[in-house]
């Protein structure tokens, strides 16, 4: 687990949200399944943290612990420095938007939004004013008299957000809020959430998603989760440009994980590495020992294919598949020097390749970043992408277990 950013921990004011060493176990009868292990998260007021991870990684469980829907088996939950671990959800004052929106179907939109205000027994005029304000915030002023079933998915989501905002929470929890929308609605709602984020400067937001694009677009910081653990937690830019682990590199941006050998260190942030006969410069988050094995995480869009097979920085390879995806073509190649490793490259436009075509792989300087070669707990999310694995599971992607330079990826 990566420590929270220095800025966050050094802030004078208490964190808006602080989950400290949270464990959660799902019990059924006498059996117990660990859902969260030692998760520590801090979010400052006005900050948006995205919890990103595959299904079953524990990100929604973490959100439920914070909301009070689940009680942790270990650890404490703090809100503005106050321990709220034992408080019921009704007394936490946290706004929650769930994936299904969970609008109350028998109540009209305005009554849905006013629900939390009525629960607080506020005066009627205050309820009316704040309901109208919340509906205005999400552009649903004219829909107050409709029933939820009379709304589209996007409109329902706005109402759910308005309902959460009406109680003026200091913390807003969004659990996969865009997952139920189609791709076009999702794009529009993403922009609306960005606008909403800008209008809530004092609200801490915890945003759970499995979509990296949503996390990158909305979050100031991203926490990557896997198997109930927080693998990495860092500022969005840092995590994207310098992923601290193989898992994060692979999950965030779908990086290829290529085994390399460190030749020399240029400075604290870069090193010369060798792959077969080719040498090139790679970014590094920390100094690497010359001669040590490492893994180069390089995203498909950062790699280049050449028609020439010769050159000091070109690796001869063979095309194993090519998929046109509209703006780009995803080409999968097998480098001669790494016969069991499949590397994916996004080439702009529609590129015509035939199976078995000979091509050259060019890795531009500083196109990738070095990540630790041997991490048991933070390995790639899927089975290593060997030729055999690719035949069975074409979408999988990772370094080969037969890599000549780096140690083997061991399955946890």
């Amino acid at each position, binding site marked *: 687990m990566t420590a929270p950013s220095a800025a966050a921990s050094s802030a004078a004011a208490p964190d808006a949200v602080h989950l400290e060493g949270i464990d959660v176990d799902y019990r059924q009868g006498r059996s117990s399944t660990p859902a969260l292990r030692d998760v520590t998260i801090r979010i400052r007021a006005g900050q948006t943290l995205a919890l990103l991870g595959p299904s079953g990684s524990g990100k929604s469980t973490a959100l439920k612990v914070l*909301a*009070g829907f689940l009680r942790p088996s270990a650890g404490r939950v703090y809100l503005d420095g106050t321990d709220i671990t034992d408080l019921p959800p009704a007394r936490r004052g946290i706004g929650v938007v769930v994936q299904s929106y*969970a609008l109350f179907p028998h109540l*009209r939109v305005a009554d849905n939004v006013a629900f939390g*205000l009525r*629960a607080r027994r506020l005066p*009627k005029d205050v309820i009316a004013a704040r*309901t*109208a304000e919340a509906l205005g915030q999400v552009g649903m002023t004219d829909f107050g008299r409709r029933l939820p079933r009379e709304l589209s998915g996007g409109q329902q989501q706005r109402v759910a957000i308005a309902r959460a905002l009406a109680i003026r929470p200091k913390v807003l929890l969004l659990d996969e809020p865009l997952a139920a929308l189609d791709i076009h609605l999702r794009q529009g709602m993403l922009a609306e959430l960005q606008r909403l984020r800008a209008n809530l400067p004092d609200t801490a937001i915890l945003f759970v998603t499995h979509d990296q694009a949503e996390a990158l677009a909305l979050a100031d910081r991203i926490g990557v989760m896997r198997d109930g653990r927080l693998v990495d937690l860092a500022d969005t830019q840092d995590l994207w440009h310098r992923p601290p682990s193989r898992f994060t590199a692979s999950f965030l941006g779908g990086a290829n994980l290529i085994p390399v050998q460190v030749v020399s260190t240029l400075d604290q942030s870069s090193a010369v590495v060798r792959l077969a006969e080719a040498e090139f410069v790679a970014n590094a988050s920390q100094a690497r020992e010359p001669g040590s094995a490492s893994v180069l995480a390089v995203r498909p869009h950062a790699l280049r294919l050449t028609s020439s097979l010769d050159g000091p920085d070109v690796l001869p390879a063979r095309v194993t598949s090519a998929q046109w995806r509209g703006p780009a073509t995803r080409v999968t190649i097998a480098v001669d020097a790494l016969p069991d490793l499949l590397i994916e490259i996004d080439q702009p436009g529609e590129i015509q390749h035939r199976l078995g075509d000979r091509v050259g792989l060019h890795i531009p300087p500083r196109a990738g970043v070095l990540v630790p070669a041997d991490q048991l707990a933070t390995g790639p999310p899927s089975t290593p992408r060997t030729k055999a694995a690719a035949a069975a599971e074409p979408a999988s992607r990772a370094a080969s277990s037969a890599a000549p330079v780096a140690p083997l990826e061991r399955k946890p």
Partner: protein
Amino acid sequence: MTTLIADRPPAGPSAQRPALRLPVAVWVIPPLAMVLGFVGWPMVAVLGESVRDGDGALSLSSWSTVLTSSEFLGALGRTAQVAIGSTLGTLLLGSFLALVLAFVPFPGAGLVARLIDTVLALPSFLITLAFTFLYGSAGVLQALITSVAGPGARLPPILTSPLGVILAEITFFTPFVVRPLLAALSVLPREQLEVAASLGAGPLRVLRTVVLPEVLPALAAGGSLVLLLTLNEFGIVLFTGAKDVVTLPVLIYTRGVVSLDLPSAAVVATAQVVLSLLLYTAYRFGIARLRTESATSDPGEGASHAAVVAHQ
């Protein structure tokens, strides 16, 4: 339709075979005859019996005599008292049990639910018989009281009172409310309850404002069914041996079988049928209205109006 026909592939020999076309009457008459024979004819027969005097001549004298008699009015009142009391008790107990089974996880909850279901399979008089063994004048509870307080101590005769009948009917008919309510609660999204709680609503408020409106149709259906069944319940009332509890079915039995006053029994039976049909109509009307209201009505709470008005 034309396009569909035009696009059809050429029909093969088997497709050219003319379809078996029977007159609609062939499909309608048999079930209609069965309904008329098994339901309509007995009711007509009962109605016919009620409008004949002792000599077999047509007469409405039985109607005027029976409907104004204190026996009939007393039985009508007692029937309503027992049916309404049992229904209310069933709704309360059934709702409580369903909520506990749905929301309070405890070991053996599944077994309890199945045991409750099992009651549905038992004959109603068995419950009363069990009540007699437990709470009757020679039952287990009486024996316990006698052993503790002496031979003079007597259990109040609750079992043979209207309250005893109501308690027995509540015991027997509660599953009729629990089952539909559990089904309704099982499809109630948990997220709604969680979100309601996060918005500041306590358990009772969540129950009242979120759960109850969602399960109201199931509750109404279960309650209406129990009301209809308790209105016509005969076995439980008979087996309690409560002489003072004369309901309409008991009156029909007394007049028809004990006194052999068939015209009077037919009048009471016809009144009972009319009452049941009226209740059923009210139930259907109520359910339809409930659905319509949930679809179109205004919740009528201030904020919705105020919020809308403020922006118009």
